Structure formats: structure tokens, C-alpha cells
């Protein structure tokens, strides 16, 4: 059937474009404040909304120095990237084993329910014992935060992977089996590449969750001198004092990396999020 081209709804388009102001306004405020000098902060509306007199990067330079920006950025990147890679490797094979095993064995069905029910466990109940436990195990650091993320995101990711598995016919694996390949080899050679769309979804959902997380690094790493980007904002609140311009420069710096990432992978992110929710 020929697809009928619907008439574009111009009024709605305009309304929706105007609506983006709700998104842009706070960000606009943040950007101009970040560029202003403390003396430019006035108490009238026009002054508050106006551009800074001079677009100087001095605030940003200073903010980078105060918050040790590059190190925080490095920590955030490291934690997020390592978590994503390990999540894709570990959670996918776990999802595969559980998904296939469930069909045949009760015990795997039980393991599935056990892990997925972890989704309901709020971090609050785990927080205090985990602080003690990770410290005892020598994991009161970035590695500990990664291990915890792997556990926290396991329920969702296992659910996603084992659900996606239904789209992959088992016949393929059986064929490889007959060729004499081991289950292990078959998985990495045949199944793992086929789950590619799910890898993207998992990577994006995990990344969005870990990148912005405050609470886990706050309780696990505080006092070690290592910060993630959000944690640095929290920890340097007093250093900023009342210099809002400096503080906002730092906030903008903290937002830039994820904004860049979003601009590059916008399509994949939107698809990934939709995918995750629909399958999950």
C-alpha cells in the first residue's frame, strides 16, 4: 500500500519548538553565568539574562584548577568505560547461559528470578554494609565502584540479554555444536556477534546510569582523594564559596563530556533507551 503523505502540522511544530525553551533556558542561564565575572551579577532581570560583557575562559581555567578537572574526568571515563566493557562481556554471557539454561532446567529458572529480582533492591539498604565490605576487601576505590556497578546493573542487563536471545534460533548453535565447536567457542563466535543490537542498548543504559551516579562513588571513594566528575562538584561546593561564576563554569565543564557524547551518538542513544524499555 502506498504510504499517504500526511500534511505537516505547522501549528504543532511551532508549539513544540517554543517548548524547547524549557530545555534551553536553564542551560542558557548556566552558560552565561559561567562566563560572567562576579561583578556582573546584578539584581535586575535584563542584567541577569544578558550576555557577559566579555567571553573570557578565565572562570573555566580557574574551575579546572580548583576541581582538578582532568583527573576527575579521567576517573569518570575510566569507571564508565571499564564498566561498559565488562558489562557487555559478563552480562551477555550470563544472560545467554541463563536464557538457554532456563528452557531446560529449573535451577536456571531459579537463578534467573534470583538475579532479576535484584532490580527491586534499593541502594540504600546495601549502602552501609557495602561501605564496610568493600573496605575490608580493599575495594574502597575505583575498582570497587566498578565491581558494584557490574552487580547493580546485572539484573537489568541479564533481563535484556536473555530476552533478546529469544530472537536467535538455537539451531545455529546446534549446527556449530555438530561441527565440533565447544559451547564456549560457539558463544563468542556465533551468538555474541548476533547480540550486537543489545550490546548497544546495554552500553548506553549502563553508561547513562554510571556517568551521572553520585551516591556510589560518594560513599565508596570519599576521602581517597579521587573524584568522579559529579563527585567533584559536590566536594568543591565550599571552595566555590559564593563565586557562582566559578561554580557554574565547573558545572558546565562537568556537563560538556556527556553533551559531546550525546551529539555524536544521539540516534543510537534514543534507540537504545527505547529498546531497553520495550524489551525490559
Amino acid at each position, binding site marked *: 500500500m502506498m504510504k499517504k503523505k500526511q500534511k505537516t502540522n505547522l501549528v504543532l511544530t511551532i508549539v513544540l519548538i517554543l517548548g524547547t525553551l524549557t530545555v534551553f533556558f*536553564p542551560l542558557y542561564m548556566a552558560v552565561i553565568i559561567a562566563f560572567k565575572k562576579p561583578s556582573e551579577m546584578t539584581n535586575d532581570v535584563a542584567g541577569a539574562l544578558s550576555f557577559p560583557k566579555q567571553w573570557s575562559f578565565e572562570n573555566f581555567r580557574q574551575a579546572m584548577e580548583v576541581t582538578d578537572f582532568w583527573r576527575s574526568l579521567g576517573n569518570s571515563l575510566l569507571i564508565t568505560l571499564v564498566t561498559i566493557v565488562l558489562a557487555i562481556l559478563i552480562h551477555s554471557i*550470563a544472560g545467554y547461559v541463563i536464557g538457554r539454561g532456563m528452557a531446560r532446567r529449573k535451577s536456571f529458572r531459579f537463578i534467573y528470578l534470583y538475579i532479576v529480582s*535484584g532490580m527491586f533492591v*534499593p*541502594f540504600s539498604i546495601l549502602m552501609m*554494609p557495602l561501605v564496610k565490605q568493600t573496605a575490608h576487601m580493599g575495594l574502597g576505590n575505583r575498582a570497587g565502584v566498578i565491581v558494584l556497578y557490574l552487580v547493580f546493573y546485572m539484573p537489568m542487563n541479564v533481563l535484556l540479554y536473555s530476552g533478546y536471545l529469544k530472537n536467535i534460533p538455537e539451531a545455529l548453535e546446534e549446527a556449530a555444536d555438530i561441527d565440533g565447536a565447544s559451547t564456549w567457542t560457539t558463544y563468542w563466535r556465533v551468538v555474541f556477534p548476533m547480540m550486537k543490537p543489545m550490546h548497544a542498548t546495554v552500553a548506553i543504559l549502563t553508561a*547513562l546510569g554510571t556517568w551521572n551516579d553520585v551516591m556510589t562513588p560518594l560513599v565508596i571513594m570519599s576521602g581517597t582523594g579521587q573524584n568522579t566528575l559529579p563527585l567533584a562538584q559536590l566536594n568543591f561546593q565550599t571552595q566555590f564559596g559564593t563565586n557562582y561564576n566559578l561554580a557554574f563554569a565547573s558545572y558546565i565543564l562537568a556537563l560538556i563530556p556527556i553533551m559531546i557524547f550525546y551529539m555524536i551518538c544521539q540516534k543510537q542513544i534514543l534507540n537504545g533507551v527505547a529498546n531497553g524499555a520495550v524489551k525490559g
Partner: protein
Amino acid sequence: MKKKMSNRDKTFWAVIIPVVILFFAFNTLPMIKGVIYSFTNYKGYGTYDYVGFRNYADLFTDSRVGKSYLFTFKYALAGTILVNVLSLIMAVGLNSAIRFKSALRGIYFVPNILGGLVIGYIFSFIFTYILPTVGNVFHIGFLQNSILASEKYAWIGVLIVGVWQAVAMNTIIYISGLQTVPEEVYEASMLDGASKWKQFWKVTFPLVMPFVTINLVLSTKNFLMVFDQIMSLTKGGPAQSTESISYLIYKNGMDGGQFGFQSANAVIFFIVIVAISLFQMTVMNKKEEQL
């Protein structure tokens, strides 16, 4: 053939056992420990005694804990409703025949990728300085005082920020829901001469019902666990009117020397979350069947 299967089984177990151990060690074990701590008067350091059910008894008489539950529920309820209504409207809008469709979708999703803490700091400034300035210049009474300083309305300030961030995610989900509705269905109903409004309720809505379930469960859970926004906007104030359960557990459990007591609070919180989620899913499943 039989031997082959057992080989496969071996691999399966070899994979799953370490995974289960990892999960047990960092999820189940701390949970059990949390339950044990909840029966003590532990401060987090030093020595402690077992105090039986005293913490639990205290929980139900502690007005601060009660207040935090009230706030959290109020916040989660209002947030869930607002977010779902708004995002359904947004989704319908963004799914219609409009120009710049993908660009608009992209822009509206931006709040969701930004961290709650930093967004909270930005809004805190807007609430404290910008809006009162606007209120004073244009003599708009309710804007003249910072909303975050009002015991009555501070929670609305937190709500605005929470909703601002959460709408995006649910919109995307509703859009993918709307896209599952086949074009023919609309055409058929159009031939019936159904009005747009009727068409939405009679045709579209039932078909996206499963997505409503997903969204309700997701947003309720997220709103119940609100932490970042509280940390950056109000720190629980004024007059402890915006202390969420998560925030209270963190604040008094880690800092206030109530390790044991707040563990009990966390146990109750866990039960509450499970109960609410199960309730939502059962009710929604029934609804879906009916439709």
C-alpha cells in the same frame, strides 16, 4: 549426544557459578548484613549491642522518618502522574506529522542525559536568585520568595527539577509505543468518523497500555529513590520538609551515627518498594487484559 549436552552443561555452570557468587557477594550478602545491623544500636564505628526490635518500634514513632516517607510518597505520586501525563502528550506531539521531528526529539531528550546533581545546582540558583528577581520586577507575589525556602512549597521546586529530567525518558518510551500502532488502525477509525480525541482514547491508548505499565513502574521507582536533587537543591530543608528516604538514610546512617537505626529504615524501605512495584504490575496486568 548425551555426552555433548553434559559438556554444554559444564560450560554453563562454569559461567554461571562465578556470576552468582559475584551477585551474592555484593547484593545479597550486604542485604543480609543490613538486616542484621538493623537489630543493633551500631554507630558505624566502635562497639555495639543487639537491641532486638527497638529500631523498628522507633521507626513507627519517629516523626522525622514519618515525615520523610510522607514527602517521598507525595513526591513520587505527583511526579509519576505529572511525568506520565506530560510525556504522553509530548510523545503524541512528537509522533505527529511535524517538521524537524528527529531534531526536536533529540533536544527534548537532553535533560535526561545530564546529571541530577549539577542540574540541581543550576536550578537552585534559578529558584533562589532569578525567579525572585523576576517576581520583584513584575510584582508577581508567589515568585518573590525563593520556592526552596518555603516549608510548604519547597517540594514543588524539587518536583519541577525531577519532572524536567524524567519526562524525556518516558517520552521516548511512549513514542516507541505509539510507533507500534499500525497506520491501518487509524485509517479504519477515521472511516468510522471518530473524533481525534475519541480516536486517542479508544484506539491509541489501549494499544500503548503496556508502555504505560513500563513507564509507571520505572518512574515510580526512580522518584521513590530521589537523592541527587535533594542533595543539590535543599539538603532536606527547610524544616526537614524535603528529606527523602534515601537522603535520610544516607545523612543519618553515615553521618549521624544511626547506622543501626537507618538500616532498619532501609529494610522497611525495601519492603515498601517491592510491595509498590508488585502492586503496580498486578493491577496493570489486569487492566491490560480487560482492555
